[in-house]
């Protein structure tokens, strides 16, 4: 599959082989929605790719040892409607489940880990946080009254 139109010179026996075929395929590594076994990696691939293509792609370009690839096509729903009441289709896509070879495992990383925010003592955020804490404590009712509001009484 040549990407773009390139004019190669006419080939005759003995000429150097000049034609370069770069795959026009793209694969996206995705986090699996359902937990997968440790050696399984999930990709979204082009609809025109086959499992043989996926295997060759990963082995030749990225040197990833691949044992087995299974693919399926996910149908995109056509239920949503726009402001003109026309049906809006979500695009279909192909998913590939790649089982790695040589006993390798893969776990999709946590890209957005929750950070513990510890503001420096003296900074504006720290003063603000302490102020908000004091306000919150002032707003809460007296615990000795056992949950009864302060306007209730003699």
């Amino acid at each position: 599959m040549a990407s773009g139109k390139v004019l190669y010179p006419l080939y005759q026996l003995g000429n150097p082989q000049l034609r370069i075929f770069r795959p026009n395929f793209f694969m996206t590594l995705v986090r699996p929605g359902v937990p997968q076994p440790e050696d399984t990696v999930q990709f979204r691939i082009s609809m025109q790719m086959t499992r043989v293509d996926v295997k060759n792609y990963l082995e030749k370009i990225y040197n990833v040892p691949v044992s087995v690839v299974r693919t399926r096509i996910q149908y995109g729903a056509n239920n949503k409607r726009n402001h003109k009441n026309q049906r809006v289709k979500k695009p279909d896509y192909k998913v590939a489940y790649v089982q790695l070879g040589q006993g390798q495992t893969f776990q999709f990383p946590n890209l957005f880990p929750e950070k513990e925010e510890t503001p420096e003592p003296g900074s504006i955020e720290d003063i603000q946080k302490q102020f908000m804490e004091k306000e919150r404590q002032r707003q809460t009712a007296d615990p000795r009254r056992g949950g009864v509001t302060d306007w209730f009484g003699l």
Partner: protein
Amino acid sequence: MAAHRGWRLVRLGCRLLHTEPAAAPQPQPPSPLYPPVVASHTAKSKSAKRRRLEYFYQQVHEAPSIAEKLRLYGRLQRLKYVVYPQTFSLNADRWYQSFTKTVFVPGLPPAGAEPAGPEAPDLSELRSLACDALLQEHFYQRKRERPFLYREQQHVPAPFLTQLVISLTAALGSRNPLLAASCLDLKPQVNFYWERGETVVCRGYRTGRIDPVRFQIDDKPQIQIRVPKQLPEFVPLDYSVAGEVPVINHKPDKLPLFKRQYDNKIFIGSKVADPCSYGHTQFHLIPDQLKRERLLKANLADQIEVTYRANGIASLFAWTAAQAMYQGFWCEADVTRPFVSQAVITDGKYFAFFCYQLNTLALTVRADQNNPRKNICWGTESKPLYEAVEDNNVKGFNDEILLQLVQFLLNRPEQL
């Protein structure tokens, strides 16, 4: 008034006097006026479900015959995973071990009884039988048609294996009376249905309910030997094996394993009334899709042994468990004696030997709560029987494989 009081006193006195002799023969309690208070049968509640389950178990326990018991056990049809013993899935043996609660022990079980004395001289006769069968298929018989796609195993290795087993069984019949009374099946059906673990139903009108995970094996070994008496156990029933049953926390769908709904069949190769209701040895042929050359070409060299192991574990579990069900045991009535069978798995050249001991059938969640028993599968690696066959000559015949095969066939209980 005084008379009444006196009469009451006399009556009390009479009762006091009469209590002691009446203590020994207690008056019979009257039959209950109301039926026992039990949970509802049809309500949408946990106690009702429990009562329906208890009623079902009671029905199966009280079934008048084995056939009726099997019919009631597999009466309800639901979607179940179809487990194929000969599968291309990667690392299938670990998954199958977790489905069947089996521990895999490499090597063969500890040999208990001493082997029969004069075996070495007979080995030459058996070797000549094996070489005859080999040469007949590879060289003497001119097979005109080239085998079609994926039919190579049926072309040469299948008839060789059949001929080898039949001739060896006939030759060893004099030594082993159990073999003489055995039944040899060609391409029999072996089926088993069981439940293991629980899951939540994700689709359909039963969404959200907790269901047991159901499995079915439909196997077709190449040859099977069934005997009227059971083989002796390799280890005691509650033996604690050095090894663990692998625990896999993913759904079987990830193996990949697919669901289907059809008849829940349990079959050992013959019907319940057949006298040869115990298993001796099975012989399996690896199919064309899983041959050594294909796996090597696809860079899956480590999966070669996995296919043999998965085949051994699944086939033997199905066979031994079906034998146990034919004797009346099931998951709520666990086996009281271990069921033992053997298998030889080959692709025509490489042979692997497996022994299986079924110690427990209780694999459902309810029956497995306090069950320390595990099933055990022993297995060897695949070794070649011969190096090459060249024009009327078998090069590099391996006597150890033949000896192991002969020992498998000569296995018999002590009483015989």
